[in-house]
């Protein structure tokens, strides 16, 4: 299947999802769906660097929050002018993409666990900066007032849902296009053996910078509408540990080598978490969500270390060989 056909199909599915959700006409469905779609984007973005090139990034929250806080800063700076959210998403994507490039330049000489620690440090540094930046609310946080009417679909929650749905389609289509391209081969060689990749002519540093920039960009774009989603944003929620944990756990559970892995992982884990949030059986403790993630992660590491996609790929290969 070529990229254009895939994009058309993905858009068709997205439209179908939106129409079905509209048919139910429950605003909560859009609210919960937004969160799941947000995780689809974050997991897919994480996987471009973490899954394809094998560099484990613990800094998701930093890239995400930079997108969100870019919006807060822009909304405040242009107070009175209603900035369209797609524009804020472009701005957030640019900021986080640029930071991703810079971080890549500084840290990609580090390998394995050292790179991961550096991304964790980045998250701490950015959070400290934001917490002490009064203009965007500092530790008190910032309120964002939703406009009365949303463009296109009327309801603001539905509008945000539609935006995140479009971004999810864009992220997945990008990830899939990379997989089937020269870039995808290059990323895979970096994951497998960097010295051998260089010896085969692969410009590893440049490719890794492309990966960090893309990852940062999509995470920033996913963060940009967040102030409108939560209407009150403070560093503790913007830099929530759940973002970093989930964006790693979802691709690992789904499978890291294909675009389908993060999608499956995010849909599965995201839905379970949404259900757990409102289910009275488990009680409504937010910590239960992370407990679920942790237990599932352990189960998968033991039973299917290559994730759901990897598990079925191995099955397929076995049956073909037999």
């Amino acid at each position, binding site marked *: 299947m070529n990229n254009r056909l895939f994009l058309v199909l993905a858009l068709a599915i997205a439209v179908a999802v939106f129409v079905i959700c509209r048919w139910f006409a429950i605003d909560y469905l859009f609210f919960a769906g937004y969160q799941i779609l947000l995780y689809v984007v974050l997991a897919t973005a994480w996987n471009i660097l973490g899954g394809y090139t094998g560099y484990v990034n613990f800094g998701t929250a930093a890239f995400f929050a930079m997108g969100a806080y870019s919006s807060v800063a822009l909304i405040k700076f242009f107070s009175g002018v209603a900035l369209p959210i797609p524009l804020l998403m472009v701005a957030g994507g640019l900021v986080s993409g640029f930071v991703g490039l810079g971080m890549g330049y500084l840290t990609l000489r580090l390998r394995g666990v050292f790179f991961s620690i550096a991304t964790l440090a980045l998250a701490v540094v950015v959070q400290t900066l934001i917490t002490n930046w009064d203009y965007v609310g500092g530790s008190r946080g910032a309120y964002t007032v939703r406009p009365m009417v949303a463009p296109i679909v009327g309801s603001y929650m539905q509008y945000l849902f539609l935006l995140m749905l479009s971004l999810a389609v864009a992220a997945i289509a990008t990830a899939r296009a990379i997989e089937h391209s020269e870039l995808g081969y290059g990323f895979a060689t970096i994951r497998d053996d960097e010295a051998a990749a*260089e010896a085969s002519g692969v410009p590893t540093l440049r490719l890794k910078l492309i990966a960090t920039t893309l990852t940062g960009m999509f995470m920033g774009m996913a963060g940009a509408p967040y102030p409108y989603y939560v209407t009150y944003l403070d560093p503790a929620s913007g830099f929530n540990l759940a973002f970093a944990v989930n964006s790693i756990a979802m691709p690992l559970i789904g499978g890291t080598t294909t675009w389908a892995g993060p999608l499956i992982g995010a849909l599965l884990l995201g839905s379970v978490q949404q259900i757990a949030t409102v289910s009275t059986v488990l009680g409504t403790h937010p910590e239960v969500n992370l407990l679920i993630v942790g237990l599932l992660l352990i189960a998968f590491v033991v039973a299917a270390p290559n994730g759901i996609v990897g598990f079925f790929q191995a099955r397929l290969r076995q049956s073909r060989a037999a």
Partner: protein
Amino acid sequence: MNAPLLEVTDLGKRFGGFVALEGIQLSVTSGERVGLIGPNGSGKSTLVNCLCGTLRNDSGRVRFDGRDLKGLAAHQRTRLGMARSFQLPRPFGSLSIAANLRVPLLYTVKARAGRGFDESSIDARAADLLAMVGLADKGRRLPRDLSQVEMRKLELARAMAAEPKLLIADEAMAGLSHSEIDDILALLRRLSAEGITIILIEHIMRAVMSFSERLVVLVAGRKIADGPPDEVIRNPEVEKAYLGE
């Protein structure tokens, strides 16, 4: 006589206080078959790494095909026409055997050719290379399905996929059986006949002696001999290094 393809002048490399290479002079002409030998730890692999850009040499110069390689990354040197195989095979484990060969075709041959490159030829080229090393029926398998000798052949095929002028084969035969060594030697001779310059780094003397036109000996980071194989192995210094006094 032509200018040498590879010219190493006064090359030195230290790891902290340990001098791995010192004052290495080496000149290789186009089309030559050079054997590089030396006891373990004598600096052979370090020299290869300095030539290929995996390590940066601390002093001296490397010129290749009329260009100074100073500051060039490994992938740039590969694109200039210097290919290597690794001492321990390092295949791309998640890619199929055929895809392993596609990587240098895409990233070296295509990058070198620029816009005029016909991408549809890649599959055919990969198939040719697989046939050359006798892995034609294994293109869709993963590297972990290969035997040790097949892995070495894949390693050489991947180096050859970059269409190099100079091939540096780092212990391509270690751990192989007698007949497997002959297999690899035949392959290297065929490449040499096609005009590719080859530097063979090897411990197996039978292989080096039958293959090389010239033998270079490294001992403790210094070059102690360089000349026709028969003369070099009678050199008392070389004997001392290998057999002791």
